[in-house]
């Protein structure tokens, strides 16, 4: 990962963001997450990851920073499944699969709305997803991306739990994580029915916020910055399939 200190001119350019302004005062280290800035990207639907306006998740905010990270993830999930559902007329999903994916779309849209309402509209930062030309009507490609985004959500929620101060917030995020587990299982079983693919290991992984941010950046136009990242990340147990 590339770590940069934002220059003053960059900070002034993004002066509408209170976190950038506070950065000047605090002199804190800002991590701008790497993204593809590819000159050839011209797809209307996808946009170019990390080419947009920067925003910052400041972990000195405590629980709201975790909620904001989750909000970025849920915006991506809800938008992705929304596009999948919108493409059903041109796609090769069975009607049973369409019903399942519509349910998942609904759940992700509800998660997104819940986090937005909990953060409050003045705090919740909306992002624009990017997909690098993903074919939303192609079953195999959609299920592969779905697996990726569900697994990212699971490891994000699991890896963030250690930083949540409020036990009520800890539990409500885990309520969502458990349902993401249900989704990941259903997607895995669509890919390889009646195998072990619904749960590749006896325990799911935990990802640190910086790792999650870097993964999200590959599918978000806005440039994700992270400030005051927690110094310590405690990993989870190791198991196998």
């Amino acid at each position: 990962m590339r770590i940069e200190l934002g220059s003053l001119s960059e900070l002034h350019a993004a002066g509408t963001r209170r976190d950038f302004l506070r950065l000047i005062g605090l002199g804190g280290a800002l991590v701008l997450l790497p993204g593809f800035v590819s000159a050839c990207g011209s797809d209307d639907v996808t946009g170019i990851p990390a080419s947009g306006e920067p925003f910052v998740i400041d972990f000195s905010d405590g629980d709201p920073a975790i909620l904001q990270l989750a909000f970025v993830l849920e915006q991506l999930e809800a938008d992705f499944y929304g596009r999948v559902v919108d493409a059903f007329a041109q796609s090769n999903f069975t009607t049973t699969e369409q019903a399942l994916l519509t349910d998942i779309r609904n759940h992700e849209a509800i998660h997104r709305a819940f986090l937005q309402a909990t953060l409050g509209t003045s705090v919740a930062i909306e992002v624009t997803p990017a997909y690098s030309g993903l074919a939303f009507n192609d079953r195999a490609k959609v299920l592969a991306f779905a697996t990726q985004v569900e697994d990212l959500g699971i490891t994000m929620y699991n890896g963030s739990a250690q930083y949540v101060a409020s036990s009520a917030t800890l539990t409500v995020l885990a309520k969502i994580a458990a349902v993401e587990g249900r989704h990941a299982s259903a997607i895995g079983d669509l890919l390889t029915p009646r195998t072990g693919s619904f749960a590749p290991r006896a325990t799911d992984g935990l990802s640190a916020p910086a790792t999650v941010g870097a993964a999200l950046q590959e599918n978000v136009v806005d440039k994700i910055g992270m400030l005051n990242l927690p110094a310590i990340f405690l990993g989870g147990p190791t198991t196998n399939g």
Partner: protein
Amino acid sequence: MADLHSARSAMTPATMGRASAGPTDVLAALQLLLQIEYLQSALYTRALTATDLVPTTDAQVYSTLANHSDQQLVLITTAITTRTALPAPSPVFDFTVKGAFPGFAFAAGQYPALQMLSQIVEDLGVRAYLGQLGALAGDKAALNTAVAILTVKGRNASEVRRLRGTQGWITGSSRGDLPAFAQAVYDGEENVQQGAVNVASLAGQFGATAGATQAFDEPLTSAQVTAILALFAS
């Protein structure tokens, strides 16, 4: 880590006060989760060793469930012993659940009952783990173990539900075609109040109230879990 937790006061009504859980609470939580692991491990171990019970089409799923529950049992047992406590012994289980599954003996032809039992113990597992996270919050290693297992319980629950033609998620507090005793495993799942937010009011075009209940699993209290586990005691 202390810095994070003393960060400025929370900005939302959903982020309420921190539970003051100590080592005693951590061990009590782990012991309760151990009982869940004993139950699941016993069910799948017996299912795997039975003859002509699990059809070959589903054998790989059940061997995965057995493998996972064995590893999870070891993790929780180890979490207890590394905190210098003794894991409670495994009960002997009655998988007829006091006659609710009459004559169930892991015998040939009894796969539908096994499938129902699998759904019950997995949905119970998800909700039991959710209910203990607050008690584990002060012990990050224990918390990490619990959340890493929780999402796999969610995966397992979804799989065993879908294998028997049920949706992978819970709608309202519906137990579907399960016997009446199982209602206790689903009571409370109809909740739509998440922190300060009534999620049903946001769910309009996205599955309405049904979708709002599916989108969140709900915790069971220790007392609720203990009462359900008692039904499985022989």
